[in-house]
C-alpha cells in the first residue's frame, strides 16, 4: 500500500551555487593537516571538480581527506549559501547554467559541513570535462517540509521525493517505517558533526580505529550508500539518544584525521524508534537513480 505523503504540497525553488575551488590556508604556508597519529599530510580535500571519484566508488582508500565525489558548489554570499545548503535535497536535479557544460543535468548526492558547506553533485564524467570552477549551477530544490502521514515521528531532511520513492520504504508489521540500508553505524563510531546542524552539513563516521571499522564491515562502504545511525537523534542537530535512529547517505570519502571519516548526509531521523533499518546489500544512489 502506498504511503500517504504530502509531495503535492512541496514547493520547488531554485537555489544556485558556483563550482567551488579547492582552498588552503594562507601564509606562513603550512598546508598540512595532521592525521590521527600526528603525522602531517597534504592531500586533496573539499571542493573543485573531481574527475575520477564518483558516487558508487569506494568511500575508502583514496589519497584524500573527505573527498567530494563529482562536483562541489557553494555561493560566496553567506546567507545565500545557507539557502543552498539547507534547501538542496539529495536526488534534486542540478542544471549547469553557464560555461561549456551549459544545459548539462546532474543530481544532488550530498552536502559537506562546518568549514566548507558545499553541496555535492553527480555529473557524468564527460560533463565534468567541460566544466570550469566558477560555473553557475542551479539546483531545483524540493523536499523541505516533506512528511508521511502514517509516520509522524519521522522527520525528513535533505531528502527529495524522488529519493524517498526510490528507496522503497515500507511500513513494517510493527508499524515502523522500514528503510533499506547497507549497514548500521554504532554511536561510538560517529564523530565530527555531533552537536552541529542536521538540516545540512555532514556527520562523519570516525575511522581512526581501523579494526573497529573493519569488524563491522564499514570499510566496504561506497560513496552513495544508504546507512543507518544507531542511537542518534538528528531532529534538531545531531546527538546521542538511545532509541533514536537516523538514515543518511555517504556523501564524502574517508579521512586520516581523528574524529573524521566518510561524511554522512542525513535524510531521515526519528527520536522515538519510528524507523526500522532493514539491512539490504547494494542500497546506493546509483541504483536508486540509475546512473553510473
Amino acid at each position, binding site marked *: 500500500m502506498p504511503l500517504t505523503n504530502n509531495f503535492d504540497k512541496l514547493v520547488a525553488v531554485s537555489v544556485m551555487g558556483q563550482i567551488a575551488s579547492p582552498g588552503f590556508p594562507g601564509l606562513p604556508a603550512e598546508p598540512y593537516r*595532521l*592525521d*590521527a*597519529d*600526528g603525522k602531517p599530510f597534504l592531500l586533496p580535500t573539499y571542493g573543485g571538480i573531481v574527475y575520477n571519484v564518483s558516487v558508487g566508488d569506494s568511500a575508502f582508500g583514496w589519497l584524500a581527506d573527505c573527498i567530494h565525489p563529482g562536483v562541489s558548489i557553494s555561493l560566496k554570499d553567506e546567507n545565500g549559501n545557507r539557502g543552498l545548503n539547507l534547501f538542496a535535497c539529495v536526488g534534486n536535479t542540478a542544471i549547469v547554467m553557464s560555461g561549456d557544460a551549459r544545459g548539462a543535468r546532474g543530481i544532488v548526492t550530498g552536502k559537506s*559541513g*562546518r*568549514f566548507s558547506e558545499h553541496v555535492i553533485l553527480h555529473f557524468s564524467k564527460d560533463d565534468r570535462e567541460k566544466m570550469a570552477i566558477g560555473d553557475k549551477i542551479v539546483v531545483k530544490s524540493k523536499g523541505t517540509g516533506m512528511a508521511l502521514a502514517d509516520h509522524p515521528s519521522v522527520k525528513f531532511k535533505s531528502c527529495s521525493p524522488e529519493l524517498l520513492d526510490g528507496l522503497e520504504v515500507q511500513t513494517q508489521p510493527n508499524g515502523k517505517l522500514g528503510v533499506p540500508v547497507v549497514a548500521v553505524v*554504532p*554511536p*561510538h*563510531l560517529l*564523530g*565530527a*558533526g*555531533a*552537536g*552541529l546542524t542536521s538540516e545540512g552539513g555532514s556527520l*562523519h563516521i*570516525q575511522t*581512526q*580505529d581501523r*579494526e*573497529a571499522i573493519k569488524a563491522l564491515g564499514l570499510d566496504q562502504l561506497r560513496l552513495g550508500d544508504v546507512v543507518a545511525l544507531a*542511537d542518534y*537523534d*538528528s*531532529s*534538531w*542537530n*545531531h*546527538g*546521542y*539518544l*538511545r532509541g533514536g535512529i537516523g538514515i543518511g547517505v555517504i556523501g564524502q570519502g574517508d579521512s586520516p*584525521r*581523528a*574524529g*573524521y571519516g566518510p561524511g554522512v548526509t542525513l535524510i531521515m531521523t526519528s*527520536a522515538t524508534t519510528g524507523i526500522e533499518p532493514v539491512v539490504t546489500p547494494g542500497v546506493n544512489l546509483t541504483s536508486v537513480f540509475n546512473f553510473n
Partner: protein
Amino acid sequence: MSLRTNAAQLVEIAVCGNVSQPSLRYPGYTLDQYGVGAVLPGMSGVVYNARVGDPAFGWAGDHVEPGTSIANPDPAPEFALHYLTCMGNQAIITNGLAKGARGIVTGEHARILVDFSAEANDLICVGDTIQITAVGRGIEFTDYPQIVLKKCSPQLIAGIPIEELPNGHIRVPVAMELPPRIMGSGAELNSEYVDQDLMSGDRDLMAELGIDQMRLGDLVVIPDSDHRFGRGFRKGAATIALCIHGDSVMTGHGPGILTLMTCPEPLIEWVIDPNANIANYLHIRELQ
C-alpha cells in the same frame, strides 16, 4: 610525591584578553532537543553565581561559563591566548576598578575562563584587560613520554594526587567516567583548541550513570578515546579531562570537557574520587 616533569624548562609568557560581553543573535533562541526555543544566559561576561565546584547541571542557562570570560579582539593574539593559556595559570587584572586583583584560569571555551573572588567580580567591567602568565605548553611527564599533556600548568599537575603504579602505569583520580558514545560537539575541531561537549540529551542515561552529578571543575575520564591530534575513538586509549562549562539544552551538546592528559596506549588508569575537582587541586574554594 608528584611525578617528575620538565617544569623547570617551561617558559612563562604574558598573554591578555578583555572581559567579554554576552551576545545573542536575533531573535536569541536556542533550540532544545524537542525543537523548542528558549532564550538562556550562560556564555561570556562575568557569571557571578556559578563557580568551579558548583554543579554543571541544573542551571536555567546554556553552556554556563563559570566566573569571568575573556577574549582578545585581534585574531592572532586571540589564538595565542587560546593555545598558550593553561589550566591553573595565574591571571591579574591590569586596568579598571579591579586593577591588581588576581585570579586563576579554570577553563578554555570559545573564551578563556578565569576565577576571581566575588569582591573582584563586582568591580570588573566588560572590556577590562586581564593578563595571564601562561606556562605549561611543552610540559611532559619525564618518565611517561607516551602520555600527552595539554593545557596543564605545573601547578595543576603538582596539585593532582597522581599515583605511579608498579606495572608502569599511572593512576589519576576522577569524579566519574564518560562513555565514548556520548562524546559530541567539538569532534570536528583539533584538540589543541577548546573542549568537546558530552551529549546530555539522553537524560535517563545521565541519571543512570550519575553524570548529572558532575560539577564544574571535575576531573573525568573518557576510556577508549585518543585526544592527541583531534578527538576520536580508539580502543585501549584513555583521556583525562576537565569539566569547564555547564550543561546545554541543545542536541549533541552538554557540559564541556577539556583534554588534560591522553595516551593511545592503556597507561592511564583511574580511580573514582568525588573530590577530584580543581577547586581542591588549585585551592580555589572549599567544596560543599
